[in-house]
């Protein structure tokens, strides 16, 4: 074998290697797609899909660690138990009510804040800071702080009411007031992010549209409803959906503020799941409750997916 032919062989091998490499780096669409999506799939599979499957399975079991008895398959018994469980109904109703109140609430407040923040301020950072701080504040911190705000004796809310001549209230003594305080806190916490997204949306609306409207003699209110709002709609819809899903999972704020009280009147579904699983160790019933929550979330997701695909179809 001559030196040249060996060299040729080596060169050939290098060539095939390079081809393999480039195929690896530049594969066809499907392989590439699979490759790109694989990390996300592995992670979602391990952290969500596998535990969810386990949860679904557990929801058909009578599995309470406090009984010491082994798990027993009971079919739909856990779901049947739910129907007769007043706390479940109360918690579910509270969750839905919180969603129905705080989602539009956060939208309206957020829209207001965004419109205010969109004014031409000379120094912008204090305004932005005041939108961003409530958002970056952990929910558990917000719950703690507002629990302190609404304290009937040492809280600042009653103090302000007293100062303007109104009687203070014992907020956490009444289901309605406690519920109102919780909704207020959630709205406060959620509205800042809403405001930021809307503010971002506002700033993409071309100025020329308003100038043209000015020429046409449209007033500011009309401009708002005919230009601003329609153009903001896509932004708002997405923000609303994410907000709705988060609202269905409400846990930290009522947990910190009232712990579900007085009685069980401000408990949410997430709190009840947590209680059944972590405190009562009734894994079967807890899992069944979780499945119900999952179904609720899926309903919202379905609406969302429909909206997205609807828009894509229109594209």
């Amino acid at each position, binding site marked *: 074998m001559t030196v040249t032919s060996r060299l040729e062989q080596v060169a050939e091998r290098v060539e095939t290697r390079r081809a393999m490499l480039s195929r690896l*780096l*530049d594969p066809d669409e499907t392989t590439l797609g699979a490759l*790109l*999506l694989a*990390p*996300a799939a592995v*992670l*979602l599979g391990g*952290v*969500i899909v596998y*535990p969810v499957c386990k*949860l679904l399975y557990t929801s058909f079991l009578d599995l309470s660690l406090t009984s010491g008895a082994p798990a027993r398959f009971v079919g739909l018994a856990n779901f049947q138990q739910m129907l007769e469980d007043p706390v479940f109904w109360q918690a579910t109703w509270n969750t839905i009510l919180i969603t129905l109140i705080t989602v539009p609430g956060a939208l309206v407040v957020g829209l207001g*804040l965004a*419109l*205010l923040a*969109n*004014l031409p301020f000379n120094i*912008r950072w*204090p305004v*932005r*800071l005041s*939108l*961003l*701080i*409530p958002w*970056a*504040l*952990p*929910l558990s911190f*917000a719950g*703690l*702080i507002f629990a302190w705000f609404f304290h009937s004796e*040492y*809280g600042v809310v009653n103090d302000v009411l007293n100062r303007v001549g109104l009687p203070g209230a014992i907020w956490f003594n009444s289901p309605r007031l406690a519920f109102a305080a919780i909704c207020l806190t959630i709205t406060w916490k959620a509205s800042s992010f809403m405001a*930021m*997204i809307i*503010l*971002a*949306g*506002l*700033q993409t609306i071309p100025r020329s549209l*308003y*100038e043209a409207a000015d020429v046409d003699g449209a007033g500011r209110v009309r401009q708002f409803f005919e*230009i601003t709002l329609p153009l903001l709609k896509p*932004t708002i819809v*997405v*923000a609303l959906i994410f907000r709705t*899903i988060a609202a*269905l999972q409400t*846990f930290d704020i009522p947990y910190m503020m009232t712990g579900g009280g007085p009685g069980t009147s401000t408990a949410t579904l*997430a709190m009840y799941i*947590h209680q059944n*699983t972590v405190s009562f160790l009734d*894994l079967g019933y807890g899992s069944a409750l979780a499945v119900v929550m*999952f179904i609720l*979330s*899926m309903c919202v*997701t379905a609406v969302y*997916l429909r*909206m997205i695909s609807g828009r894509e179809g229109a594209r």
Partner: protein
Amino acid sequence: MSATAISTSGSLLSGKPLRAVAAVILIVNGLFPALWILLTSFKTEAELTLKPITWLPHAPTLQNYMQAFADQPLLIFLFNSFMVALLSTALTLLISVLAAYALARLNLRFRGLIMSLIIAVSTFPLVTLLVPLFETMRALDLLNTWTALILPYTVLSLPVCTLVLTSFFEGIPRDLENAAMIDGCTRFGALFRVVVPLSAPGVFTAGILAFVNSWDEFLLALSFNSNPALRTLPVGIQLYQGEFAFPWPVISAALVVGIVPVAVLIVIFQERVVSGLTAGGLKG
């Protein structure tokens, strides 16, 4: 987008006095709770039970801060929170950039289905997965590590970041990418040298969203990392609470220590956060 080009006539109001009123409303709404905690952190426990309550501390004291640092390793909590948030943000960005590119650029057969799956999966409340996740982490021997939090936090932010980035990538003209590929870039090269830099505001927005999500989380952090040296801030704050006692001034001091770094970050990056959202990130 520069500040001067920002449209202002979208608002209903304008004029100087109105602007002043607006600023007051915004600042009181956004900063009062934090300010109140700041004031409380300078009060003594005795002053807190005075009636009527005091607004400004009578005899401001730094005692609560000293106690906050003495009672618990507060700086370690901060460091853990920060590192876990940072690492999970990095991982989220890496994975979601890849996934978003596939969804935005490739002709995938099941694109709609994949999108739906990613979103659907994200709606499963993590509260409900506590016990199965704990078992998984234990099986993988990950309890009491940063990884035990980084993985679920990454999953927590993955869907929303993927959505944000997908819509950003869709906004980058294909021509630019093709040109890069003709110049000898591979697809990956084009992705990381052209698409990602051009989507910088979106990547930044996604990163901020991921960071705040991790920074915020309480329940998993409470359950997975019991070693004090690995606890994060929201969990650490709870430790100031006693079996019966609830020392408000000390907790306030600890809260302030927890809020300040984020506030500083926000002041530095505020322009970018808003402009990132502006560029159409969350339009789905």
